[in-house]
């Protein structure tokens, strides 16, 4: 590779006093000073959270109000700091969602351990756990910093769903049962 030597122009006497550069610097800082401030008055003015922000992990309902989590425990398994603890539970047969078979009995995320890596969201086959826009978790005790199932759903709310995979499965089963009777 050819080496190109760039001739550096020697500074003139006027430039060597650094006065022109000092004046330019003063002008820059002064311009900066008359511009409006760039910080937000935080508790009153909240920053605009961009889409895809990875905040606190939460659990979500689908638009029908069904818990999406099926307690497969993949997130618990993949979680690097082991912040997630899931107690799986059966869904009783009289429940309208009985065809999903399982849902978490208890779902705890220890926010003192969570590193906001988003792997739980990545791994979830049901798109049930989402890192949403909530970015500030505070509490007075260690216990307060552990989000249980109720709190996780409170934080998560309902997200739109395009797949309705369990409904489709139920419909398919029913159709199969029906069709089977016909054929």
């Amino acid at each position, binding site marked *: 590779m050819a080496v190109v030597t760039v001739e550096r122009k020697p500074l003139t006497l006027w430039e060597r006093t650094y006065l022109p550069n*000092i004046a330019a610097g003063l002008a820059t*800082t002064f311009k900066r*000073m008359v511009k409006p*401030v*760039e910080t937000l*008055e935080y508790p009153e003015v909240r920053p605009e959270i961009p889409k895809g922000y990875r905040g606190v992990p939460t659990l979500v309902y689908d638009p029908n109000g069904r818990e999406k989590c099926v307690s497969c425990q993949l997130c618990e398994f993949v979680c690097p700091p082991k912040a997630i603890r899931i107690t799986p539970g059966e869904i009783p047969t009289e429940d309208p969602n009985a065809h999903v078979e399982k849902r978490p009995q208890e779902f705890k995320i220890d926010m003192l351990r969570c590193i906001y890596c988003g792997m739980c969201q990545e791994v979830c086959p049901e798109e049930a756990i989402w890192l949403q826009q909530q970015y500030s978790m505070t509490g007075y005790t260690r216990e307060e910093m552990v989000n249980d199932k109720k709190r996780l759903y409170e934080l998560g709310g309902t997200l739109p769903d395009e797949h309705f995979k369990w409904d489709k499965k139920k419909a398919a089963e029913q159709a199969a049962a029906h069709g089977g009777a016909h054929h």
Partner: protein
Amino acid sequence: MFDFYFELPLWLRLVLQGTAVILVLFPLAAACSMAERKVSAWIQGRPGPNRTIAPFLTWIPGIQIFQKLGLFQLAADGGKFTFKEDPIPGHVNKFYFVLAPIASMIPALTTVAFVPFGAYFTQLADGTIQALPIALTNLDVGLLAVFALGSLGVYSLILAGWASNSKYPFLGGVRASAQLISYELSMTLSVLPVFLWVNAPGMPGTLSLFDVVQTQSQPGFWGGMWYVFLMPVSAFIFLVALFAETNRQPFDMPESEADLVGGFHTEYGAFKWSLFFVAEYAHMIVGSGIFCLLFLGGWNPLPWVPLQTVTDLIGITGNPLLSGLLAITLFLGKVGFFIFFFMWVRWTLPRFRYDQVMKLGWQKLLPLSIANLIVYALVIAWLETR
């Protein structure tokens, strides 16, 4: 109206005047610390301290302006400094450790005595208007006295550094002594052309700061000219040396938060530390005041527009009180701009390394100021013999 005042004994009047000036200077120095925080914030695109407010005052309409300006933060800081626990580390030399911050206040407050803040006009019996200085003392050797007392300020820094008995403060103290001696030379030499000019034959032979301003408020092109136009190099050297003498960035070698933790005041806290702080700002105020008096026409509003033109225009020349107030306002306005300039420069220029500070002082500024002095001496001599 104020006759009763002039009937008081001299010593009582002096004490009252001195107290009044200190009572003005102290809050002014404290206000500078808040100004510093606000200006720093604005330059960095932040609003700065704007939340603190005394809860029992919130009902007053318009008080939010002071809240936004951080005035209550200032009061809170002052309260904190006063009432906070003030531990003395076990390894220090206690007597000198306590003495140092007190010693720092002495030159800071005494130099003010020699600075005239303004002038007022009185009508003499024969109808001529005479300007009189508003100052504690109008010494013939006023400027020298300010330099002399100001140069004592270095001892508090040396003492603090030495008494702290710890590496970084010690280095800060040593740096302070070397830096302040180095720059004092250029500073003193830089003002000599001004006094050569003022003391030229036909001019009042004096070192008084008031008379320097008076020579800048004459009618005519040469009479009304501010010395910053006449002697820009002098003004520049004086300004740079002033930055070095007040330990402001980019010459903050004694403090050097970057490399010496806090320099000479590393071991200090609470009230003692705040005394150093106030002393530094008081030095800044007095230094800017001297600069304004020497080079920026003191209390004259504009170059070639002396104060008396303005007072004549609005018809308060005969009123000592109003003309005096106007002069003080103009002067303090200029000083305020300089305080702002100090802060402005702080966030513009990078800090020097210590060897660069020494090199600049001895190898650049000192020869420059000597050359400047010689040139002006020759020019003034030539003008005289012409």
